[in-house]
């Protein structure tokens, strides 16, 4: 009966889920390590040894590429964390904070590539801000000849990462605040004479940081190794290490794959070293922080200035993303738009018509992949959470780390290996393979987004339903899922947004033959056709944003007469 069969399937789901995540990860790492040390069956001229590393070291761009990876990653992470900590300390619980919080979902759902294009369109020498300034300040007739986007120090790349990582870390911080009993701790600190910011940093931040440590590590690993944002905003000669690895991976000369694999191993080592460094700084900061707390300094004088300063970068990050999308939209419908003008001379739908048929096909493929990957992730996540609820099978600390593994191990370190492994096994990188690869990255976000609301659900509802004669499956379908419809839809929107934004898995696992909105948009980066970029980046944003709107509207519509489900 149902009782018996679900007992067999459901308890196996957590293990199955870990396999879905970790088998490709392991295969990918092996598939990267092998070629890096010269082992690649089927490639003539490959022989075991350190030749690949020698070739890598001989690449003149290596020192700069390595430095860039470290500097952009560490700077973007430290800046994002500082902005989030300060704005939460100074503004948590206020109306300003509530406004920032409401912006979070749309900000998070904007794909990295679209946000990067938006930033580029804003701050480039011929970008919108310069046009605005030309009108009244600089009086320039032609764009100034300076390198802002793709600057050699990677400053624009850092900015592009910060505007997207701030919303992510802010979301994680808000989730952690509830568990850290933040409001009361801050109140207690204030009654002891500490200003709100100082009090928060001393009394709440240590507990919050313990909760968001893993997400911070994810941000660090991601920022060091991101490919699509680095192609759009990062320097070119040489590019960051991960971009160079991708160039070697996609070179027609297959022998460069060995060099790419060696680069991937180096990239992984760099990330591990950076994480270790970060951990050391954590320990040192904790020690300094303890001394700071012990001194008992109230430092109320700096408070107003700190409050003012802290809201600027957070607001600027939000404004950059939103304004960037607006400028992308403007370019997609711009006719002639000569330089110093802040608005196009005319508007036209020509760009949309020109790319329409191609766009429709690519958008349909993107949405199909995102839908399937999200559905699979949702089934696995719900299965894991239901197994946890019914049988007490929980992912404890180790499990959580395993869950974060696909987000911590840089994509560029194991996806080349996945491609190599697929090549060796004779697997074709079609739509299905790309979808499966997306699940690896979609699932963790879906699971993390579902976890809290599912565990917060009052299990007495399940007990009541059982005593009314309902079996476990009926409880799930008729009580639990309908009550948790809003979080399920939000998690689905998160999943779709994550999948839509995937660049490297789509490109490498699909072997370049499964174009999506993201790969097409990024491919346009070098061409400089702003109208085409506007069209594709806007379509990419819409594909990620529309599900969020639906997730917000649908529960309100379906449960408009159910007050008990609406007030959260």
């Amino acid at each position: 009966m149902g009782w018996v069969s679900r007992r067999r399937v459901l308890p196996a789901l957590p293990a199955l889920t870990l396999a879905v995540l970790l088998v490709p990860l392991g295969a990918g790492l092996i598939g990267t390590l092998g070629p890096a040390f010269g082992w690649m069956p089927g490639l003539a001229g490959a022989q075991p040894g350190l030749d690949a590393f020698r070739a890598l070291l001989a690449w003149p761009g290596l020192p700069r590429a390595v430095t860039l990876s470290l500097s952009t990653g560490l700077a973007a992470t430290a800046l994002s964390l500082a902005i989030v900590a300060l704005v939460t300390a100074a503004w948590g619980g206020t109306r300003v904070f509530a406004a920032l919080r409401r912006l979070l979902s749309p900000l998070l759902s904007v794909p990295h590539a679209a946000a990067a294009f938006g930033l580029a369109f804003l701050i480039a020498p011929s970008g919108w801000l310069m046009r605005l300034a030309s009108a009244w300040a600089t009086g320039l007739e032609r764009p100034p000849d300076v390198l802002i986007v793709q600057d050699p120090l990677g400053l624009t790349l850092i900015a592009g990462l910060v505007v997207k990582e701030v919303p992510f870390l802010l979301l994680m911080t808000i989730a952690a605040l509830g568990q850290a009993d933040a409001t009361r701790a801050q109140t207690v600190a204030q009654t002891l004479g500490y200003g709100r910011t100082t009090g928060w940093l001393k009394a709440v931040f240590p507990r919050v940081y313990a909760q968001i440590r893993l997400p911070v590590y994810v941000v660090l690993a991601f920022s060091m190794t991101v490919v699509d944002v680095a192609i759009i905003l990062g320097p070119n000669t040489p590019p960051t290490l991960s971009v160079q690895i991708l160039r070697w991976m996609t070179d027609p000369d297959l022998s460069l794959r060995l060099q790419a694999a060696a680069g991937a191993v180096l990239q992984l080592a760099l990330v591990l070293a950076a994480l270790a460094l970060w951990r050391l700084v954590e320990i040192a900061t904790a020690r300094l922080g303890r001394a700071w707390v012990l001194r008992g300094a109230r430092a109320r004088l700096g408070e107003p200035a700190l409050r003012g300063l802290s809201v600027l970068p957070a607001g600027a990050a939000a404004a950059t993303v939103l304004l960037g999308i607006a400028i992308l939209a403007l370019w997609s419908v711009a006719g002639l738009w000569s330089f110093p003008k802040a608005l196009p001379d005319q508007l036209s739908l020509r760009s949309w018509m020109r790319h329409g048929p191609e766009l429709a096909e690519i958008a349909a493929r993107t949405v199909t992949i995102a839908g399937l990957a999200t559905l699979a992730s949702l089934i696995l996540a719900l299965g894991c959470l239901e197994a946890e609820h019914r049988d007490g099978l929980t992912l404890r600390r180790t499990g959580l780390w395993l869950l974060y593994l696909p987000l911590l191990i840089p994509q560029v370190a194991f996806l080349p290996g996945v491609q190599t492994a697929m090549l060796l096994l004779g697997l074709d990188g079609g739509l299905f393979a790309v979808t499966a690869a997306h699940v690896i990255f979609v699932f963790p976000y879906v699971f993390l987004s579902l976890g809290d609301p599912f565990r917060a659900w009052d299990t007495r509802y399940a007990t009541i339903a059982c005593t009314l004669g309902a079996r476990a499956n009926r409880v799930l379908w008729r009580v639990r899922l309908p009550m948790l419809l809003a979080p399920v839809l939000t998690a689905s929107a998160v999943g779709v947004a994550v999948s839509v934004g995937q660049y490297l898995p789509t490109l490498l696992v699909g072997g370049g033959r499964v174009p999506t909105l993201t790969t097409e948009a990024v491919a346009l980066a070098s061409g400089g056709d702003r109208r085409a970029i506007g069209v594709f980046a806007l379509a990419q944003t819409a594909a990620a944003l529309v599900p969020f709107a639906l997730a917000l509207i649908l529960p309100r519509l379906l449960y408009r007469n159910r007050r008990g489900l609406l007030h959260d």
Partner: protein
Amino acid sequence: MTDALRLEDLRVSLRNETLFALDLEVMPGHVTSIMGPSGTGKSTLLAAIIGTLRPPFEMSGRVCLGQTDLTPLPPEARGIGILYQDDLLFPHLSVAENLAFGLSPRLRGRAARRAAVDAALARIDMAGFGDRDPATLSGGQKLRVSLMRALLSEPRALLLDEPFSSLDVALRQLMRALVFDQARDRGLPVLMVTHDPEDAEAAGGPVVTLGG
């Protein structure tokens, strides 16, 4: 037609330490009250009887209805209803849908089920409330609906987990009378967990004190 609820040497332990041991019989139509300060395992006892006790808790002994041993059965097959302090009406369902969720599946046909739900609403003086959102009901109305939802599933015993403590004093007496009368009419054995001596007094049955 109804049987006594018997706890035979029921012992619940946490990490090899016994929380409580009980051996008692609740006769049909009677109310036995379990009293005790918080933390003595009153809710754990109810979980053991319903069949939702989870590790690290362990139990030994048997829960029986008449001659039937319920211990090996899952919660949904035990035929024991429960009322909590909170109404726990399903917030996504209307009042009528909540009642229909409880209504035994043996009653077939849309019209017959609808009629049974309407009759149940009339019995608690809430005729015409079927399409209401449970969140819009008063505390007393919510309790009445959740009582009726439990009774419609035709339980063979009823557990009460401090069901009156969230009501104000005036309403409390009315609701006690309603719940105890309904249970007595159906000849259900009732086990009530409470920390309010007035509850136990109103119930009029034996009082068992846990812990302390």
